């Protein structure tokens, strides 16, 4: 789903593709989605059945399923275990056998498609290309046809499994890399066409559609002092991932941070995890949002991806939200559970087809904002992990939306605001109030939690005041220990966010994010 686009652009650089099917799971949502993408590009498909080492593997059943559903001949499909290496050599054999050699014309003006690029500290941007026509070697001057930027080629070569192998010349039909002291990946846009300054091609290759972020959230350093480190980390990640967008944002509650845009929730989670793992940052992430189109009474339209910028309801004529076409593939036993879930997420049932006797493809129209929180987690848990899920954007639809605000001790916590469909506002507000009550520890005084639409409070809970903490004697021998205890207490507070007079633990933000309905 999130990475359809990445798969698609790789496929555009190939003559064929290996379709890997899990020997125990069989065909999944992504299997079909990727098959369709490959067929769109007229690629030759080589089916491979993987994970035959698993106890639950059933390659015969899965082979039959692939023949049935996709119509690919699996009689010679290798059955392999990538984990143990069993039969992997057969895959290479099939690739050589079945995938046609590229049609190539070395004499035409150079046209090479950029399908990816990475940043290397020593070489600058390394551009991955598929040469469609012509040739390129070191020392020649190349031009990016979309941006017009020109560079002298430093090195060309092939990508090997473990290393880069330089070569003299990249020729038509080949896949390889180019380095040319390119400073930023923005100069080597994925989908652009590389040609030569001398004898340029007249027309670029079709290239790719531009991808736009679909899901947005605020990312803040847990410790304000890490703001610069967070900015550096985002900048580095963006070098290799042009689909990640970010811009500075300030929150009354969280201080300085960034509004970040992602292809989808998976993309968001990957970036968040990389920031935490690779850059050792402690983050606070706000509730993800999609882009809403708000039509104002004056006829203008504003796009809102941050609840903080939601217009005054009095100014709103109507609102639109993004809708997806979603397919869920699962064993037929779970149809009921899945339909309940989709119904609950405001889904509109489109159709259902039996892929095999046991497996179904359930097609729903689902609002994007219903699937960006925890849809996949809940789906997995309701189907014991057997369901797979894929979606694509299907435009905008009019919708009855509300902005919910969270107030603690009377102060609005902007980072906890979110936009939600009217029908779900009440239940969600109550649930959030409860979860906040559970996660905010009792403090020296009572803390009212209010969830409000505008000035109207629709849910309310109270964190009772703590009446007593450890109250102990303090004689001559207790002073050092006591002081250490109070100072440790201060350390603990560092993991809390101070909002006015209220201290809120970081988990509270997560609690609002993950309102798993099953708990």
């Amino acid at each position, binding site marked *: 789903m999130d990475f359809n686009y990445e798969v698609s652009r790789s496929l555009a650089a190939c003559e064929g593709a290996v379709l890997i099917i899990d020997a125990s799971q069989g065909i999944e949502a992504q299997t079909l989605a990727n098959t369709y993408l490959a067929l769109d590009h007229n690629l030759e498909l080589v089916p491979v059945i993987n994970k035959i080492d698993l106890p639950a593997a059933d390659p015969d059943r899965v082979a039959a399923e692939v023949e049935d559903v996709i119509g690919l001949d699996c009689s010679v499909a290798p059955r392999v275990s990538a984990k143990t290496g069993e039969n992997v050599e057969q895959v290479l054999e099939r690739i050589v056998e079945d995938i046609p050699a590229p049609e190539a014309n070395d004499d035409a003006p150079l046209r090479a498609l950029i399908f990816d690029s990475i940043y290397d500290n020593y070489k600058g941007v390394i551009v991955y290309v598929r040469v469609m026509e012509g040739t390129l070697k070191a020392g020649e001057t190349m031009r990016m046809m979309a941006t017009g930027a020109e560079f002298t080629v430093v090195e060309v070569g092939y990508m090997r499994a473990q290393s880069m192998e330089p070569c003299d010349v990249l020729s038509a039909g080949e896949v390889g890399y180019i380095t040319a002291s390119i400073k930023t990946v923005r100069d080597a846009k994925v989908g652009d066409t590389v040609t030569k300054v001398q004898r340029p091609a007249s027309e670029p290759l079709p290239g790719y559609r531009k991808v736009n972020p679909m899901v947005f959230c605020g990312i803040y350093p847990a410790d304000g002092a890490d703001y610069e480190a967070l900015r550096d980390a985002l900048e580095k990640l963006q070098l290799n991932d042009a689909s990640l967008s970010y811009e500075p944002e300030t929150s009354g509650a969280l201080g300085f941070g960034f509004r970040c845009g992602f292809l989808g929730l998976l993309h968001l989670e990957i970036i968040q995890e990389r920031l935490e793992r690779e850059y050792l940052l402690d983050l606070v992430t706000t509730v993800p949002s999609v882009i809403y189109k708000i039509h104002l009474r004056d006829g203008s339209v504003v796009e809102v991806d941050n609840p903080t910028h939601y217009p005054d309801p009095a100014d709103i004529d109507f609102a639109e939200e993004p809708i997806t076409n979603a397919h869920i593939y699962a064993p037929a036993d779970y149809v009921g559970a899945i339909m309940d879930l989709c119904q609950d997420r405001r889904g509109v049932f489109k159709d259902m087809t039996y892929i095999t006797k046991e497996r179904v493809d359930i097609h729903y129209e689902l609002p994007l904002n219903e699937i960006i929180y925890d849809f996949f987690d809940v789906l997995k848990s309701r189907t014991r992990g057997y369901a797979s899920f894929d979606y694509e954007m299907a435009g905008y639809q009019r919708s009855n939306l509300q902005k919910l605000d969270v107030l603690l001790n009377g102060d609005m916590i902007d980072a906890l605001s979110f936009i939600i469909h009217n029908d779900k506002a009440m239940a969600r507000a109550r649930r959030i109030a409860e979860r906040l009550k559970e996660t905010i520890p009792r*403090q*020296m*005084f009572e803390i009212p939690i209010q969830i409000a639409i505008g000035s109207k409070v629709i849910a309310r809970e109270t964190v009772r*005041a*703590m*009446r*007593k*903490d*450890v*109250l*102990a*004697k*303090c*004689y*001559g*021998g207790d*002073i*050092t220990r*006591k*002081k250490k*205890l*109070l*100072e440790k*207490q*201060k350390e603990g*507070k560092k993991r809390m966010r101070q909002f006015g*007079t209220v201290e809120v633990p970081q988990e509270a933000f997560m609690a609002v994010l993950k309102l798993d309905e099953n708990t």
Partner: protein
Amino acid sequence: MNAGLYLHIPFCLSKCDYCDFYSLCANDDTMDAYLAALKKALRFWGSQSADTFDTVYVGGGTPSVFGAGRLTETLDLVRRSFRLTTDAQITVECNPSSVTKELADALSVAGVNRVSLGLQSAVAAERAALGRRSTVRQAETALTLFRNAGIDDLSLDLMLGIPGQTPQSLRESLRFLEGTGVQHVSAYLLKLEETTPLFARRATLSLPDEDTVCDLYLQAANALEQTGLRQYEISNFAVPGFESRHNLHYWLCEPYLGIGPAAHSFLGGRRFYYPRDLRSFLQSDAPVFDCIGGDKAEFCMLRLRLTRGLSDAAFYARFGEHLPKEMFTAAKAFARHGLLTADGDTIALTKNGFLVSNGVIGKLISTL
């Protein structure tokens, strides 16, 4: 600044189920050996210390178990070894069951002018729950014996949050305290210390819940104040002028010297202590350095335990600088919720504030 002298007598007839103070059951030989070690330490410190002491506090354990003779010998040596003020407050802790006329008279002759008695509760079932031996009658007798001997500055301990304690049963204890006419009461919340028998059987105890304990505390504090014993510290109440001057040394962040196993000292800006080990003390091992004491956080933390509170003037006198503005800002937020009072100079916790003093004091000193 005058200092306080603390002497630890680590012996009891039997150990109470809730107590984690360092004390042992001992025979005469051990106590004689201890007296010898104590005297050696007194002579050493007497020769070392240039301080003037205005309090002596003999605690334990159960000092009365040590016996009139040894206590007298100890206190005589204290007088010979240290410079004491003429009005020094000299306190001995006693267990009502081990007080005799002989002991009371001997202590009086030895210069003791204040006695602190452990009672904890006037309700027999509650004392049984704590594993206390003495009876209400013994406490009354002990008070009379001391008064007859001329020691009429008397303190009783009261415990709150005892298994089975209710507002009604607490009223009984409070009524008893009032009847005794003592000038001082220490009222502590029961805390289950991990090393105690009470902790081991905690699952079987019907401990009052948190709200009840808070109510018991407020009930006791208000009742004691109504009988003229003003609260001066989180857990201490006295007729004005009868405060424990020795304990005030701790809370005012003033120097004190502690002698005996597990006794702590704060002298010359350093905190140190004798290990919690009788044998170590008997072989005259030196005390162990703990840390440099008396910093701003410590000063504030301790002063805020007192009803008189933390004053900017006192802070300035000690450190030559003012309390940070942020502390008063933080204080104002607590004041709005009735946890303390704050004017431009002094921050003083209220009774409700004392109940959450860890949080309140922790927050206030985090502004330093």
